[in-house]
């Protein structure tokens, strides 16, 4: 799984759009959406929302957590907690980035929101780095990573899993050597 594939998964998350066109209910393989009427909010997957937005056929209502107040609170929680705080969405970084890139006019204070998202993800990345160092120092057999989002897992996946693989190969050789002598 690379970053594009994780973003692909995030695009399945549902968001609310306010269309400016009329259309009956659309039956897709993965669900029914609509009916679409001007000024009537309706729920669609993010990929569809972005596509409609690009054609200027709708406004996107940002998720309730994508604003300065909520994110400031989350940033505070993240700084105060030693563990990873549960985020409002498992794909919060991707959803925020996609909406900021494609519908920044639908978001109030987009620059502040973008900065907050970056602060939160930086704070979490720092915790993750510290966690990795602890795991190696303590010779852990496994590590708990509750509330880590798929995007964050992807950012360290190959580095962390391969390092652990190598460490355990080295250790099992060391053990064998110790029992032989």
């Amino acid at each position: 799984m690379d970053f594009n594939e994780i973003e692909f998964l995030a695009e399945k998350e549902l968001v609310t759009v306010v269309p400016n066109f009329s259309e009956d209910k659309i039956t897709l393989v993965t669900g029914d959406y609509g009916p679409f009427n001007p000024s009537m909010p309706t729920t669609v997957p993010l990929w569809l929302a972005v596509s409609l937005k690009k054609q200027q056929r709708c406004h996107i209502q940002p998720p309730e957590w994508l604003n300065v107040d909520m994110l400031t609170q989350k940033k505070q929680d993240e700084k105060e907690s030693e563990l990873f705080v549960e985020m409002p969405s498992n794909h919060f970084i991707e959803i925020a980035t996609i909406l900021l890139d494609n519908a920044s006019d639908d978001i109030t204070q987009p620059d502040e929101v973008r900065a907050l998202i970056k602060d939160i993800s930086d704070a979490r990345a720092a915790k993750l780095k510290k966690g990795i160092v602890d795991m190696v120092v303590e010779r852990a057999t496994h590590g708990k990573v509750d509330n880590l989002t798929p995007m964050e897992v992807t950012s360290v996946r190959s580095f962390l899993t391969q390092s652990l693989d190598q460490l355990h190969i080295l250790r099992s050789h060391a053990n064998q050597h110790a029992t032989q002598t």
Partner: protein
Amino acid sequence: MAESLEDTMDSDFEYRRMTIKEVVEKIEEAWQNEKLSPELLPAKPDLLECLVEHIKSLDESLSELSAADLVCSILKQELDRIKYVVCNYLKTRLQKIERYVWYYCDHPSHLSQEETKYAKEFASNLDTHLKEVVLQHLPTNFQDINKRKATLKPDTTRYVFMRALERKSNITIKVSGYSVTLDVEEGSQVVLPYESVSELVREGSAKLL
């Protein structure tokens, strides 16, 4: 007669009661796990066949509609997303089969019929290629390949990230001589060796991250 049909259709039975939406979800789950697991997971030929048939019929009905139509373009976009997952899923499996071709020729239990056929052809082509390019130019006593030594096996001790989809206790983790057990709650996420959770991933009570 009816009984024997039911027996052979056992694995089919489940998907016959599924909606196409559930089939897509199952394939998407299988795709994510397949991308992240070191070994080949059990093939899902029935689900795939069902989905590919559906894609074909959708493709046909869409080709009759005008591309400029909004609904049509939305349907096409969704279809493209589904096709992407199916192609990527199959490609991921083929990459593993090619990499561990000799191993999977001997252990074809997780391969579909088509994949088994592909693996055999790939192995025989590889044999011919190695012979023609190198082996036949070597002295006779160097011309054998020791397949037992040359066979690459999927390494199931590799570390993976997993998310528990239900509560499980006593997961055994064995690493370099140590052995510990672990209990997980629904939604917990752990980085640990693949072999300790391979069974859970196969039965669907854990997914790889």
